[in-house]
């Protein structure tokens, strides 16, 4: 196996990554955009078809592998990170991508998700977050806002939602990012950075469900409003936003607040600068809590991007070290272990 492209192999196009199977998402579903950006990204990186392996669980998003021309596995509900773990440990040189939804990854698969992050399993995990159960036709999900009226919450949901970015950071994911189905260029940038990252890469993608939760992200996607509601995170850059880039984020104690850069009260030098490689993760946590805040913009981009030894790297390092020390095991050595005596 190899993940290097040799000179003869032609570079594939986005179309080469389509399996040709009929895509059966609802017309207008945000998943189409994600599929297109993933195929573009795979082509741009220069993957060959046999290299990336795409794993999913159950839900609308989880049909994804069927539409890709790569190896793919449509697993069972919530278990995609566990399935992907087995694949990744077996094939350490292959990029393994997990495609999942908010029900799949945040509810039934929550345990697998946090432990994959904790172990720094080298998986690219894409969360298609539409804040609703789509495939089962419209029940509230663990990312639905409190008070949401759905088929199983006719008087309003009484659950508090997860903030997936906070959960990933709390589980020590080494790469945490967010993007939106309506922002194809931004999504490609984020997916490329996730692909480059060695270790767990978690990407939350706000995705519109046209049937059961249409418009859930409207303020972030409408041309009129999005500039005032989105904060594009850029490493090393001050956090400014707004149509005229005239609003900035400053810290008051531990609280981020919005300041006006036009009225002379604050200068650009006071504005918080993003450091995605900040080891402590404190800044990323502060940014994560800006989600759905009435007075603050919602950040998209890379929250955290740090390099640590992955589970797979440690495993194979240990295999090498122990083999070096004890010698390579064979059937002969196996059968000569223990206290042996001979009967003549």
């Amino acid at each position, binding site marked *: 196996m190899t993940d290097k492209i040799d000179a003869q192999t032609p570079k594939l196009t986005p179309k080469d990554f389509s399996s040709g199977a009929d895509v059966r998402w609802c017309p207008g579903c945000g998943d189409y955009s994600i599929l297109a950006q993933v195929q573009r990204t795979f082509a741009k990186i220069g993957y060959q078809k046999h290299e990336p392996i795409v794993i999913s669980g159950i839900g609308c998003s989880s049909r994804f592998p069927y539409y890709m021309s790569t*190896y793919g596995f449509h697993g069972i509900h919530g278990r995609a990170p566990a*399935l992907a773990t*087995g694949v990744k*440990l077996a094939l350490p040189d292959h990029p393994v991508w997990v495609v999942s939804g908010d029900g799949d990854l945040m509810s039934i698969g929550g345990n697998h998700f946090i432990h994959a992050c904790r172990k720094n399993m080298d998986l690219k995990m894409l969360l298609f977050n539409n804040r609703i159960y789509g495939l089962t036709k419209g029940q509230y999900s663990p990312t639905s806002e409190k008070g949401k009226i759905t088929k199983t919450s006719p008087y309003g949901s009484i659950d508090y939602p997860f903030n997936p970015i906070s959960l990933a950071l709390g589980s020590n994911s080494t790469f945490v990012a967010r993007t939106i189905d309506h922002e194809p260029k931004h999504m490609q940038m984020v997916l490329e950075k996730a692909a480059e990252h060695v270790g767990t890469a978690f990407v939350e993608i706000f995705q519109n469900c046209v049937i059961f939760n249409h418009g859930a992200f409207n303020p972030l996607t409408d041309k009129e409003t999005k500039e005032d509601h989105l904060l594009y995170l850029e490493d090393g850059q001050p956090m400014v936003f707004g149509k005229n880039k005239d609003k900035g984020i400053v810290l008051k104690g531990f609280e981020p607040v919005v300041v006006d850069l036009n009225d002379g009260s604050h200068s650009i030098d006071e504005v918080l600068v993003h450091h995605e490689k900040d080891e402590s993760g404190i800044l990323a946590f502060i940014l994560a809590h800006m989600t759905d805040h009435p007075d603050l913009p919602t950040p998209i981009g890379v929250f955290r991007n740090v390099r640590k030894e992955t589970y797979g790297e440690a495993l194979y390092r240990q295999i090498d070290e122990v*083999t070096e020390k004890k010698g390579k*095991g064979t059937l002969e050595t*196996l059968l000569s272990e*223990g206290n042996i005596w001979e009967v003549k």
Partner: protein
Amino acid sequence: MSEEVHEKKVESLSDVTVMFAGDSGDGMQLTGSQFSSTTALVGNDLNTFPDYPAEIRAPAGTIYGVSGFQLHFSSKDIHTPGDSPDVLVAMNPAALKKNLPNLKKHAMIIVNIDAFTPKGLKLAKYESNPLEDGSLEGFDVFPVHITKMTENALKDTGLSPKDIVRSKNFFALGLMYWLFNRPLEPTMDWVKQKFAKHPELIDANIKALKAGYHFGDTAEFFTTRYKISPAKLAPGKYRSISGNQATAMGFVAASQLSGLQLYLGSYPITPASEILQYLSAYRNYGVITFQAEDEIAGVVSTIGASFAGKLAITSTSGPGLALKTEAVGLAVMTELPMVVINVQRGGPSTGLPTKTEQADLLQAMYGRNGEAPVVVLAASTPSDCFTMAIESSRIALQHMTPVILLTDGYIANGTEPWRIPEIDELKKIEVSYASDPENFQPYARDEKLVRPWAPAGTPGFEHRIGGLEKENITGDVSYDPQNHDDMCRIREEKINLIADEIPELEVMGDKDADILVVGWGGTYGSITDAVTGLREKGHKVAQVHFKYINPMPKNTEEVLKSYKHILIPEINHGQLATLIKSKYLIPVIQFNLVRGLPFKSSEIEEKVLEILGGKND
């Protein structure tokens, strides 16, 4: 060890059962396993049965905190840990009380008299001191100051009084070594290795061991020591092995024989955790062990590793198998090779975690949604786990199917001498792969209905699989009614065809007997000893033992229909009996005891005699 026997008599015995019993913190499992190792090294046949509470340190001195290690050793061929002990070493009153009802008549009882204090007696709920009130009449009782003599022997070691007392199990072990003429060196070597970083403990434990040995030599009330000649085992190299050890080694061997890297995805659960522990030490064999966040991740990651071309296995016990149910169905649907080892324990629910049972057979057979047939195998003895681990790997890899391998707490923890096979006795496991990328169809089939394996990552065979129903041949998602019916039948038939490649049932004992005793899995030893005993007494009895349960051997019906009476002893409420009755429509007599314990062979003997002497005869 010098053979100083002074004036003490040496008596030859052919067969002895010893029970070491004490508090769960007294080190009885260690004492028993050391005695076993040494006994194996001197060439006796042996069989052991560790029996311990689920609590790690139950309140000291109580009955439910008693930990026991039963060991049967002999100059003959034996198959069980012995029905009743000839010798009991009781470290406290509770250990005596718990084990007394099971002792042989006139058994020897060595008690640690220092523990028979008013408090100790009260904790064991003794009204009066059994050493004084005559209740032990008929037994050969030896009260020994095990604690005090250990304290005396170690008083100059500088260890704390608490640490000194902890060495008392080595005193008891030394005394037993003297009594049964065993060398001290193997245990001394073990102590030196085990406590290499604590020289003071090496010194203390060896001192205690020797003190016990010398006490036997000098104490006047021990007038006799015993000699058990080596058993006549088949020539070859031997080691002592437990079922869990043999299981772990068997899969490493299967990895070597197939040339595939071994992947174990598992979650710790009693009594299966040892398999994960043993395999995690085999890194230099390339073994990947993944201690997952839960049982489900254990099995699902295993399916992932199988998709990627590894020899992929997962280990668990009953409640864990229940959690893995949905994933086993996924492996059935995706037709990927995988072995699930279930070390059965007492159920239902958490049940009796440290005790044995055979009540997961129907769970293994049918415990999934939909028509989801899998191969079910069962190991019959501790060392047979090695063979069946290789067999389950071979069948999984060559037939692209999940296999459930059933062992149980009894054979998993029990030990016996194992004749180590020669390398050339182990057959290579041939694995075939999809070879023609142009015409590759993921669900095409060969004459055995096996689909081609194209491990993920192989250039040219990119394909998608999953839990949705597959169209025959192409593997595309299909909701077609006729296709689903066809696929259900194909999956069933694929398993049935494996019967062509497994050994037929072999009848042991009298072919012309009136009664056939039918067993499966871990009851092999008890049934074999019972049948042997009955035949020695002149009764005509035959025996067959199932190791392949789904599919069953091809001659099953013919064999079962050749006997007037079929007796099926099982540690469940008749699960093999249910399978046999429904499949072959023949009447069977069930014998079911679900106590968390293996059968005594005498219980099976009595049942057979009852049938033979009854009016049905």
